[in-house]
Structures are given as structure tokens and as C-alpha cells.
């Protein structure tokens, strides 16, 4: 009989990623309802030291495979190692992150385990001692509830949705041999190239400050960059600003540019033509600063300021600076 709530923890360069703690906290909650253990799989090289951190969030047992072939991440090696330890221990629930790495791994793993999986879940709970997973469908128009007919009941959890709850456990570390068959490892990482700009990509940014035709010229963007620096935001632009050559194409938000959904989108001097709205209207909070009270952006904005942005933005920057200093 399958038993135990398991997670696949994620680490990069020897540091556990936030999603690992979200997985651990969620697994703990489910395990408590079932009266079962929480186990984590941790794969990599030179990572034994960080296994203990997972216990802080309610993991009872961490299965660690410390092997040079597991670093850096490859789908082949990680799927092989995880499948081995899961098959040996037969857990009832297995959770992964719907992160880039988790999405990559879960497909291969679910095949190796010949089970079913609910991807990109926004909620998981126990009903009748079984896992019930909720996931958005049709681009968020409705939610599907998924139950499983085989074990492990596998689900990947959308990052930044599940709360992190501290719940320290004694936590034991179990080392296991991933038994990697070199002939089966078909990919080899030759080189890792990191984006050195240090700038968060628009599509991943939490905060975005965007400027449009109202910026009047490339110089205008200095005040936007000032605000962005203070609140840790990425700078975006409307098509008008990009076409005018004030900003690079990579900054363009909208129908033909990037589609973004940050928590906060500050639109400065952007009228909000539908082509722009199509790229940012799914932002959580939209703030608009525009001189024209008729600008359609105000219909979409949660907060709007009808005023000269060259006056408002510096004031806002100062206010944020003060607030953050406190």
C-alpha cells in the first residue's frame, strides 16, 4: 500500500529554491491530514549540507543523491534518480514545482512511473484520503478538479501560490545511490551561460514601470528608471516609444511585444490603446499616470493619477524611497 507524501526539492548552485519550501509546507499540510510522513528528494552534487533546511518546513526524511552526474541539472539524470527512489519507496503522493525545471522533469518522470499527473495546480487538498488537485483551464476561464486513479498521485504546483509555513521536524537524511547508467545519459551540459545584465526579464518581473508617447523623448525615461531603481522594478515601454527609437524593442509591452503579468504595473504617459492593453491587462495592480482624463488606460487602472507625469513620478519616487528606508 502506497504511503507518504513526497516532494521533489529544487536547488540551484547549492541553494534551495523558494518553490522547495512551498512544496514542503504544502506536503506537510496534506501529510498531517493523512497521518503520514513527508519525504523530500534532493538531487545534485555537494548538496548534503542543505538537506537539513527542508526539515524546517516540515520534511521528516530527505532522500539525498549526491552525484557529480546530477550537477548541473539534466532531464535524463534527474528523472532516472527520482524514478528509482520513488519506485523503491512507493509514496502515495508526489509533488513537484510547476517551475521551469519542475515542468521539464515532471513529464519525463510521470512517464517512467506510468502514473497520472495534474500540472500547474493552484490548490491541492485531501478528500476521502485521496488527493484532489485544482488547476486552471482554458487560460483561467474555469477550474478543473482532478482525482487520480493510480499512485503516486502526482501534481505540480504553480510557484508563488502556496504559502510557506515553518514547521521544524527532526529530519533525517537518507543517502541513496541514484544508480545512473552512463549509457542512458543522453544529454551533457557543455556550458552554462547566464544573463549578466542583472535585469529581471519583463515577463518575469514582479514590478514594471512603463513609459509611452507621453515621455516625449528618450531623456524622459531617466525619471522612470529612477522610480524603477527605487522599487526594484523593470522598465517597459509602449510601441510608440519603441518606434520612436526611445527604447529598445526588448522593452516593448503589448500585442506585438511582450505579454506581462506583474503584481504592479505603473503606466506613465501611456494612453492605453488596445494593442498595449493586450500585453498588460492581466497585471494584478495597474497604476496609470496620464494628463488626459479620457485616456482608456484609466478604465483598466486600479489607481489613476490625472496629472503631469514629470511632476508626479519624481514625487512618487521620493515617497517610495522614504517608505522603503523606514
Amino acid at each position, binding site marked *: 500500500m502506497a504511503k507518504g507524501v513526497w516532494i521533489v526539492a529544487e536547488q540551484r548552485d547549492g541553494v534551495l529554491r523558494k518553490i522547495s519550501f512551498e512544496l514542503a509546507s504544502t506536503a506537510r499540510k496534506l501529510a498531517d491530514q493523512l497521518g503520514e510522513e513527508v519525504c523530500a528528494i534532493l538531487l545534485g552534487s555537494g548538496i548534503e549540507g542543505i538537506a537539513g533546511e527542508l526539515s524546517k518546513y516540515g520534511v521528516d526524511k530527505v532522500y539525498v543523491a549526491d552525484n557529480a552526474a546530477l550537477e548541473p541539472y539534466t532531464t535524463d539524470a534527474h528523472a532516472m534518480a527520482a524514478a528509482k527512489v520513488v519506485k523503491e519507496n512507493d509514496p502515495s503522493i508526489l509533488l513537484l514545482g510547476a517551475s521551469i525545471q519542475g515542468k521539464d522533469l515532471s513529464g519525463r518522470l510521470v512517464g517512467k512511473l506510468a502514473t497520472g499527473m495534474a500540472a500547474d495546480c493552484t490548490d491541492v487538498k485531501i478528500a476521502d484520503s485521496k488527493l484532489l488537485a485544482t488547476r486552471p483551464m482554458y487560460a483561467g476561464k474555469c477550474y478543473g478538479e482532478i482525482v487520480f486513479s493510480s499512485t503516486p498521485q502526482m501534481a505540480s504546483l504553480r510557484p508563488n501560490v502556496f504559502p510557506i509555513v515553518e514547521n521544524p521536524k527532526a529530519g533525517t537524511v537518507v543517502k541513496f545511490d541514484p544508480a545512473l547508467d552512463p549509457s542512458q545519459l543522453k544529454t551533457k551540459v557543455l556550458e552554462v551561460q547566464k544573463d549578466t545584465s542583472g535585469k529581471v526579464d519583463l515577463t518575469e518581473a514582479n514590478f514594471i514601470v512603463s513609459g509611452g508617447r507621453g515621455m516625449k523623448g528618450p531623456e524622459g525615461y531617466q525619471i522612470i528608471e529612477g522610480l524603477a531603481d527605487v522599487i526594484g522594478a523593470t522598465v517597459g515601454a509602449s510601441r510608440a516609444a519603441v518606434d520612436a527609437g526611445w527604447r529598445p524593442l526588448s522593452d516593448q509591452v503589448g*500585442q506585438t511585444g511582450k505579454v506581462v503579468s506583474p503584481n504592479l504595473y505603473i503606466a506613465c504617459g501611456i494612453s492605453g490603446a488596445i494593442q498595449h492593453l493586450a500585453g498588460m491587462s492581466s497585471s494584478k495592480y495597474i497604476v496609470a499616470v496620464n494628463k488626459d482624463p479620457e485616456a482608456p488606460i484609466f478604465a483598466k487602472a486600479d489607481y489613476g493619477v490625472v496629472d503631469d507625469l514629470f511632476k508626479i513620478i519624481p514625487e512618487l519616487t521620493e515617497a517610495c524611497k522614504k517608505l522603503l528606508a523606514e
Partner: protein
Amino acid sequence: MLTIAGKIFLLLLIGITVVAFSRRAKFLIALLKLGKAEDRSDQVGKRLKFALGQVLPQRCVLKHVAKGDFAGIGHMLLFYGFSLFVISYGFHIAEGFYEKLSPALFGRTFNNLFFLLLDIAGTIVITSIVWAAIRRYVIRPPRLKLSMEAGIILIVVFSLMVLNFLMEGFRLLSEETPFTAWAFVGMALANLFLKMGLQDKAFVLSQFFWWAHMTVILGFGIYILYSKHLHILASHFNLFFHSTSPKGSLQQITDMEEAESFGISKITEFSWKHLLDLYACTECGRCTDNCPASNSGKRLKPEEVIQNLKKHLFASANHLLAEKAGEKQEETEGQAMIGEVVTEEEIWDCTNCMACMEICPVAIEHVNKIDDMRRYLVLMESKFPSALQTAFRNMENNSNPWGIGAHTRADWAKDLGIKTLTEDPNVEYLFYVGCAGSFDDRGKKVSVAFANILKTAGVSFGILGSEEGCCGDSAMRGGNEYLYQIIAQANIETMNGYGVKKIITTCPHGYNIIKKDYPQFGGKYEVYHHTEFIADLIDQDKIKLKKPLEGLFTYHDSCFLGRYNDIYDQPRKILQAIPGMKLTEMERNHARSFCCGAGGARMWMEEDVGERINDMRTDQAIATKADTIAVGCPFCLTMLTDGIKDRKREETMTSLDIAEIVWKAMDM
């Protein structure tokens, strides 16, 4: 009449010509047969009428003379002049075998008249050739490219004329009873030769020039098939086999479920008619001259697409013919049609504005070829501009390219008391609002204005509300036939479910696709564009335009309304019905109108090469000094509004839809 030896020699010459001509013709026809089957044998009478109607009065090249395309006059003169000469060659040869078979057979007057006309024609042809040479080598309009073939034909035709006159002159001098009295050039030359003391040699020289003449003309007959002058023969057939399906409709992919490949990536996947197009092209360059992509510095040049496809067809001919014959082929790395012969950039640059097809004198179908190659790129390779991906996905999820929640589609109509067909399926007209009219704030204003006009006129109409879907124009023209068919079928099912018979749209793209492409899926409706409908309402006195409107207006012909549907007059009629209306035309108007840049799914793509097409069109409007650009299309409205902002004219210039202008003038 010739001697026995002469006759044998002439027969030999003719024999060589016939053999060389038919070998080449056989080859060309075999190449055409490599193309896919396509039935173009319907409506023979209509086809014949069209082809003759284009060729005989030379309408094909004269249709734009009024717009400054004077080259057509030169073509006409050459065509008539040379045609007369072709008849004279018949007489020459016939006469060579039996001397009674001359124009004199039809009487003295006919004979005189014939040679008079021939001399006039010869003079005209020589003048035209000199003009053509000056134009091509001195004036050098950008649409003409210098090519050796063009030079050869000018020289050959010129020498044919000269040889003819020399022959005529010496013949007149050598004969005791001149064969004609009215050949004024021949007579003048005969007099000249007489003064030069050539009378003794006149007979020999006339014989010499006769043979020279025959050799050149027979050689020319062969050369036609080997050069771009294939046009002289192929264009007649191309006009005869022109597309009779609704103007601008695309052939749907019929076997979506079973087909193994979609769209076109190999030259032999085109139908034979599309290959015949390649023969018919004579590099006149009118298409490129009128193409908004070419004019704005993009890579697409429609003429080059056709010419490069033609070169590709000939370059791979032997390989393809052998393959068809079942002969084993060594794997040869020929050019890839997409990528090397026609680049992806060229394929995506096209706005589907149809300016090329409208101007083409020989009915070449450029846009269909480009859209078929798009289909291949999208459906087989999934290679298309990334911005288009966003639009496709949004159309899939929310049935509009912007991805705005489908349930909000009818929000614009909330406070207007407009019934949906669920509430009242017995209305006479369905107002198919379309995506722009439903979701774009600017477009919504147009929808409201038009709905108000309909209500005032007491028209019985309803909307589909949230049951309406995207019309699929951008999916179809963006090469995503699969998505388009899903969208179209869903809409047709909904509309047929309500028994819809008459539809009005405010968007020419929806208008065109519902009218011309939906019938392929069983959606057959009477479709009206709102400008047609409003024009009728004015005619029937159902609405009154009482308030004079200030300022100068200019009307921008949308491609999908004008060129695609020949609706040019109604919008102008509406505007002129407004009191105090001052209307001016842009330099490019009616069929020569310049695209706004948004057609062919370009609305959803970046335009980062060359100048922006909408800015160029805006400049053309600014040049009229108008303060309002009137349009009948939401895409044009967006593009021109953007252009006005780009040109910093917001304070002095605006663009409005015809419906908004009418509603203003109704002053309710």
C-alpha cells in the same frame, strides 16, 4: 513567287522553326503539368469574353493610363502595329509559294489600304520602340529593370521594321507595276534608292531583304518561347484561365483531417495555373511599383517573387521531369523554394492589400501564392513571427486577437437596448460587430454610432452578443488555416442556428470573409458593409443628414472594401450627402489606394524594416491638407490614428469612421 530552290529553302526554314517551336512548347506544357490539378475550365464564355475584352481593346495595360501609367499607350501601339505585321508575314510566306496569295487577292483597294496601314503601323512601331528604348535606358523608371532580353527584343523588332521598309522600297523600285501605290514610306525609300542609283540592284536587294526579314521573324518566333517574351503567348491563356472565384477569396484546404502536408513549399505543389502565371509575367514591374511593402523599403517585391519562382521552375525542370517519368534521380540539393527562392521575410511582408493583382495586366495571382506559402510555414513548420503567436493563441482562447475575455464581447452594447438573437431571433439583420467593434475602445465608438443610426432608421436588427466569434480573417491570412476553419465553422453554426439571412458588418475584413469565404463551409448570407447600408438608408430617406460638418475631408479606401469588393462610391456618396461637405481625394485613391499596413494579419506583427506603411499613408493624407481622414475599417482607423500621432498632428487632424461622421451629421 520563289524559285524551286527558294521554296525548298523557305520550307526548310519554316520546318526548323516549327520543330524548335513545338519542342519548346511541349517542354513548357510538360512543366505546367507538373503543377497540381485545378479546374479552370468552367464558364468558358465568360472567360473568353474577359480575355478578349482585356487583350483586343488593350484594357489590360490601358486601365491606369488616366493615373499616369503612359507605358500602356506604347504597349497598345506596339500590340496593334505588330499584330498587323503578323498578318503581313502570313501573306509574305503564302505569296512565296503562290503569287496570287497576296493582299491583292482581296482587290486593289484592299491591297493599297493594307500596305498603307502597314506603313503607318511600321512607323508607329519604330516610334514606340525608340520611345521604349529612351524610357528604358535614359529615363529609367524604377519599376523597369535593365535586362539583356529586353534589349534583344527592342533590337529585333526594330530591325524587323527596318528590314520590311528596305524590302518594300527595293521591291517598289524593281517592279514595273508597283504592287501598291499607297505605301508612303516604301515609295519615299524607292525614290531615295533611285537617286542613289541603286535601280539595277533593286531586285537582288529586295530579294536579300525579303530573306533577311523571313529569317529574323522565324527566329523571333522561336526566341519568344525561350525568353521572357513568352508573355506574348502565355498572357492570353493566363487571362482566359483567370480566377473566377470571388475576388480575393482564398482556396480553402479541404482535407484538413487526412492531408499529410498543408500549404505550399515546393514549386510543383502550385496548381498549373499558378505556374502559367510565371510564364505570363513579363517583368513590367507594375506590381512592385504599387506594393506598399516595396514602397516602404521592405524586402518583398512581388515581381521578384514571380520571377524568382519562374527561374526556380526552369532551373529544376529537368530534375522534376525526370522524377515524374519515374527515372531514378541522384539526390541533388536544389534550392529550397521557401528560404532561398522566396525568403520568409518576403512572405511575411505582404499585407494582402491586392494592389499587385489589381494592377497586373495579365491576371497573375500573387497574394494566393504568398498565403499558400504562409500556410506551409504555419501549419507544417510552425515558423512565423512570434507576435503572431500571441494573436493566434488569443483567437483560440478568447476568439479575439487581443485575448480580452470573450464574455465581455457585448459590453459595448449594454446601455443601448440592443437585442441579441437569443432574445429575438426574428430580426431582419444581424449586426456582426467583429472584434475591433466589440473590444477596442476606439472601435466600440464606431459600433455605438452605427447601432444608433440603425435604431434611428428603424432597422430591425440584433447582435450575437457573447455568442459572436472572431471572423478569422487574421488567422486565415496569417496562414493558420486550421484555426480559421474552427472559427468559421463555429460562427456559421451559430448563425445558421438562428436562421440568419442578412448580415451587416462595420469591418471590411469580416465583410469579405463572411461574404466570400464562409460559403465554402455552408455559410451563405446576404452580406452588407455598413457603408453600403448607410448609403441605402440615405437613398431611402430613412435618415437625415442635417448638420453641416466643418473642415476638409478625405476618404481612405480600405483594401478589403475597395480592391477586394469594389466598394468605392458608396462611402463617397454618403460623405457628399452631408451638408457643407468638402471632400478631397488623396493622390492614390480608388483601386490605386495605398494600404494602411494592417491587412494580411500584419496588424499583429512588428513592422521594423523600412518606413511604417501607416505613416506613409498618413503623409499622403496630410498632403491633401484635409483635417479629417474618413475610413470604413477599424484596422485602417487604428493605423491612421497612430500615423497622425506619429506625425504629431493630433491637434489639427483626426480620423473617423463613416458611421461616426454620419451620426454626427444626423445631430440627434
